[in-house]
């Protein structure tokens, strides 16, 4: 009997916009082969504005999750899409991320990365693939839990900037903070990180994931995978 895959894509900015259509195209072609039922939930409380157009592709102005879900539903009719036009908060996190989910996290702040990683630590089975970038480099972290045990490490392990973030989630920001100009980003770096996230997804799905983090630098022309496995006894802490 064909299975079912429940995917959450949190953050539909530069990385999320680059990732979504390729993820959908791959899953639609897989569904035609396997009959696997695919549901993709897009989550973002932000609205697309014309100033984002240098890195983000939306066919209309409006909430990013709603607009992108509508676009994808037209292009990939064999898949099921749902939009949640909200930022991640403590109040909605347990409804957004559930056991068995595959979560692509493409947000622009460490506060949300910490919250989602902590939520995943509570779940028996989950795959979290999180990407972030600066101007010309970035990284992808893959946190896998199976059978109530960590297979790879949570996003906060070895990353104090995520464990103790200095930034805020968009849900905590004032209108002035949200409107302030953010650090500049480069479309090609968003693409590089999105590609690394999809590569990690494919490696996991095909049972060949051998790393828990990968670094990408588009100027150096390099990617560096690193293992992130729990040490003996770490699952029992």
């Amino acid at each position, binding site marked *: 009997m064909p299975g079912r895959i429940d995917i959450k894509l949190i953050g539909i*900015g530069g990385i999320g916009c680059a990732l979504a259509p390729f993820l959908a195209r791959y899953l639609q072609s897989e569904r035609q082969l396997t009959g696997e039922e695919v549901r993709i939930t897009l989550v973002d409380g932000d609205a697309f504005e014309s100033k984002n157009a240098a890195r983000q592709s939306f066919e209309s102005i409006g909430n990013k999750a709603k607009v992108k879900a509508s676009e994808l539903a037209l292009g990939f009719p064999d898949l099921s899409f749902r939009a949640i036009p909200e930022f991640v908060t403590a109040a909605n996190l347990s409804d957004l991320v559930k056991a068995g989910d595959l979560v692509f996290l493409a947000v622009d702040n460490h506060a949300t990365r910490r919250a989602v990683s902590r939520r995943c630590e509570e779940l028996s089975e989950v795959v979290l693939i999180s990407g972030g970038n600066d101007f010309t480099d970035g*990284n992808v972290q893959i946190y896998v839990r199976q059978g109530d045990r960590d297979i790879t490490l949570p996003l906060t392990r070895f990353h104090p900037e995520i464990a103790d973030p200095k930034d805020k989630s968009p849900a905590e920001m004032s209108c002035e903070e949200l409107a302030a100009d953010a650090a500049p980003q480069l479309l090609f770096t968003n693409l590089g990180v999105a590609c690394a996230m999809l590569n990690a997804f494919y490696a996991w799905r095909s049972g060949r994931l051998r790393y828990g983090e990968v670094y990408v630098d588009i100027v150096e022309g390099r990617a560096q995978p690193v293992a992130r496995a729990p040490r003996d006894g770490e699952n029992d802490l």
Partner: protein
Amino acid sequence: MSDAQVKGTTRTKVAGQSKTQNQVRVLYGVHSLEADLAGRTVADVRQALRQALNISPQAVAVVDGREVEEGVILLAGQQLEFVRLAGEKG
């Protein structure tokens, strides 16, 4: 040992060059190198490579997958990673 002496031992290994018995692999982001660093401390290596690789003072030191203190002495065959800070934007 001075910083200059440590730096002198941290050149990226050239293809075909034979390994010595004191090799330690060092990672920082996309950068990696192998050098004769056995017997040096994590702090020695951080100081020697700090400017060349722009290593953040916040970067956690990890040896063979385990977080370590700066005073730990490296052994031949180990891998030392200074964990590059995660990209923030998206």
